[in-house]
């Protein structure tokens, strides 16, 4: 019997060498944040989207740098000003064996924006789009105005089968409706405990090397690191910056790092003559100096971004000079990181009429971004050095974002000078430009997170034109121009881009993703 077993093992290993993809290997991943559901249309949230990528393909996939690539659609292109034609991949089967066709796409697009009890749905990406089935493998997306970001928007929508379209969120969590076309199939889901997926051997793309993947939410940072060290899990996401040096010295551990699409930046009150947290020296009232572009420029020059990266972030970040790191669609080649120049900042302040500076308060969250409270403290010290005496007030994100968005008695942003971050979900520059820089315009849906209420007609015009321009090269130029103008006007002050760290046991490494997703398909053997 024993002989037989070892003979089988040899045979299996020979087979495995022949086709390296076919092996029975289990991967366990410790996640920093847990999905709130396995219903891919329930909650538009990073951890949920990352999990659903395993089970549900999109029509258009986003690679590790968020560049678009064919998913369930083999091609997508505008056939006239108002219509995009998607050609679907043929011969793809759902996990239950049924064929993938245009009907599944149509019902997916109908369900995605409209899930009962959804805290935050996908309607944002499907607004103003009508989907029409042309034949079994062709669909048209129609819009009322030319719309260039069709590919980016559609790449956010997980495609479910017609069975799923009839199902409730509970059916998805129970696994009965969790039927996609993705590289992994549903195995089990115990909220708070584990999500287990198994390989889809009939996958249309490259079959994953892992036969089974278990995700375990371990939200406490030190415990996550300890679980990796103890061998409970093979890989973890969200390594705390304080543990990075220790883990680097550990021979059994392999770190993988990559810059994210998240910029950390400062918003300045640019809409109130009398800003609540800006005072003259000694506490008297003062006409809001942040309205003056020279003052904003001086603040930017007074911030030592290298020091923030080196000391506060322990080297795990990149200094930022614009809204997205290089390599993303729509970034400008002409923008450098603003150099640290305290003397220049003082001179500019004097020129603007504040030779002795003024007083203000920086507000920020203390549990949202990596080292957020420490960054706010560092910035306050740097500003105090050039004469702007800056106090620091940080608070939990659950309190912070509400107040920062509409905390004043009139329902306007409450603070004068705030630290925030923005991750470009679409993976290109229109996302931050539209939401952070464009004039706050409720009816058009622009400037929804413009908490400084910066407003510049020319920048707005550039952004709006970019959002109408279907030609990629032209749009790239327009977005870069809008970014340059916004930075020139110091609409916001970018400080750094977050770098994310994953840690795996020796022999494994992770292909870092700009969207911060942790995907089993990105875990490779060395």
């Amino acid at each position: 019997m024993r002989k037989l077993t070892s003979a089988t093992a040899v045979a299996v290993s020979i087979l495995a060498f022949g086709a390296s993809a076919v092996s029975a290997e289990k991967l366990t991943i410790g996640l920093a944040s847990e999905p709130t559901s396995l219903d891919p249309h329930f909650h538009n949230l990073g951890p949920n989207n990352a999990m659903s990528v395993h089970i549900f393909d999109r029509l258009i996939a986003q690679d590790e740098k968020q560049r678009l690539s064919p998913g369930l659609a083999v091609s997508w292109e505008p056939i006239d000003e108002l219509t995009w034609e998607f050609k679907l991949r043929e011969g793809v089967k759902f996990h239950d064996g049924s064929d993938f066709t245009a009907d599944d796409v149509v019902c997916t697009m109908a369900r995605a924006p409209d899930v009962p009890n959804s805290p935050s749905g996908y309607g944002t990406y499907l607004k103003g789009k009508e989907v029409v089935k042309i034949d079994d493998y062709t669909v048209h997306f129609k819009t009322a105005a030319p719309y260039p970001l069709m590919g980016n928007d559609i790449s956010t929508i997980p495609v479910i089968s017609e069975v799923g379209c009839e199902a409730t969120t509970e059916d998805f969590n129970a696994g009965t409706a969790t039927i996609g076309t993705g590289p992994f199939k549903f195995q089990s889901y115990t909220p708070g405990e584990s999500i287990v997926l198994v390989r889809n051997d009939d996958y249309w793309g490259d079959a994953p090397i892992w036969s089974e993947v278990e995700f375990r939410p371990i939200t406490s940072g030190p415990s996550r690191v300890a679980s990796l060290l103890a061998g409970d899990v093979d890989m973890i996401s969200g390594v705390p910056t304080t543990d990075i040096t220790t883990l680097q010295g550990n021979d059994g551990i392999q770190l993988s790092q990559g810059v994210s699409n998240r910029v950390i930046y400062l918003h300045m009150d640019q809409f109130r003559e009398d800003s609540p947290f800006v005072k003259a020296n000694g506490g008297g009232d003062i006409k809001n100096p942040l309205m003056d572009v020279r003052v904003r420029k001086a603040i930017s020059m007074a911030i030592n971004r290298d020091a923030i990266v080196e000391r506060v972030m322990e080297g795990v970040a990149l200094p930022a000079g614009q809204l997205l790191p290089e390599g993303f669609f729509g970034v400008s080649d002409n923008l450098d990181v603003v150099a640290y120049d305290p003397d220049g900042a003082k001179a500019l302040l004097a020129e603007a009429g504040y030779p002795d500076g003024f007083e203000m308060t920086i507000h920020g969250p203390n549990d949202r971004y990596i080292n957020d409270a420490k960054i706010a403290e560092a910035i306050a010290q740097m500003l105090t050095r050039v004469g702007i005496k800056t106090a620091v007030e940080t608070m939990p994100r659950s309190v912070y974002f509400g107040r920062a968005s509409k905390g004043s008695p009139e329902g306007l942003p409450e603070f004068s000078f705030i630290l925030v971050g923005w991750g470009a979900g679409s993976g290109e520059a229109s996302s931050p430009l539209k939401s952070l820089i464009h004039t706050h315009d409720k009816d058009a849906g622009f400037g929804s997170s413009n908490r400084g209420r910066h407003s510049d007609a020319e920048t707005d015009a550039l952004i709006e034109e970019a959002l109408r321009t279907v030609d990629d090269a032209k749009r790239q130029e327009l977005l870069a121009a809008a970014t340059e103008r916004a930075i020139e006007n110091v609409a916001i002050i970018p400080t750094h881009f977050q770098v994310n760290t994953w840690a795996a046991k020796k022999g494994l490494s992770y292909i870092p993703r700009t969207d911060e997703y942790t995907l089993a398909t990105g875990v490779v053997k060395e």
Partner: protein
Amino acid sequence: MTVFVIRRLLQAMLVVFLMSVIVFFGVNIVGDPVYMLVSPDADQADIEAAIRRLGLDRPIWEQYWLFLKGAAQGDLGDSFVFGEPALKLILHHMPATMELAFSALFLAIVIGIPLGLYAGLYPDSPLSKGVMAGSILGFSLPTFWVGLMLIMLFAVELRWVPATGRGDIGSFLGIHSSLFTLDGLSHIFLPALNLALLKISLAIRLTRAGVREAMGQDYVKYARAKGLSTRRIILVHVMKNIMIPVVTVMGLEFGSLIGFSVVTESIFAWPGMGKLLIDAILQLDRPVVVAYLMIIVLFFVLINLIVDILYSILDPRVRLQDQGA
């Protein structure tokens, strides 16, 4: 007895109602859950739709009235984050917390009482002094620190048990619990020990004090004179007398084991109610926080009642009827 129980139940309902007022308004004036829930890509119209859907556009007293109406029918509201009834979520996470709390209580009793008994009977032996010194550590070291140290020692260095998570679930007599599998026991050992440390120390000190006091009492001398064996004196007569404070305190502490296992559950990624609560607080999932606190209030009230009844069994001098008023 019946009158007493009924009266206590009425009092309990009043307490629960008052707590609902405090909890609901307390939780609802802090922060803004909408910005925790909506995707950053959402525009102003999406945000307003979310506010309406969660019912947060209504005035707070109307929200409270709706909550009360629902609560009277056993519906404590839907979780903002999961979209499911908060009560269902909590009940779903309750078994994990219960098995953790029972395991911790079990450890506290089987480790704490014998050690305390020994320390009380032989107060001058070096071992007793060691036990008493150790119990001071149990009181004073912070739970999260001890938890991490336990993980570092037993899971990372020695690799005896897993660091985090809950093990396989077994079933016995229709009860499903991870206590019935070896894998489950190896997972629960560290969190249970971590949660029990404070209670072990408490049990040691209470038992020791009780034994030292009882050993000098007349009834012990009388029993000795009567010729009873030391064994019988201690295990029957002394134990029965010193158990009253121990049962009271342990009963009350059981409530706190359930209610405040938050830290232990977070460190050991234990999928219980405490972890659910801390996540709900961080994300401002108000219905879950309110429902959780209401359930904990109910627990404390019930446990107090049970302790009172146990009293009367242990100590015939206590008459329940006399206490009610």
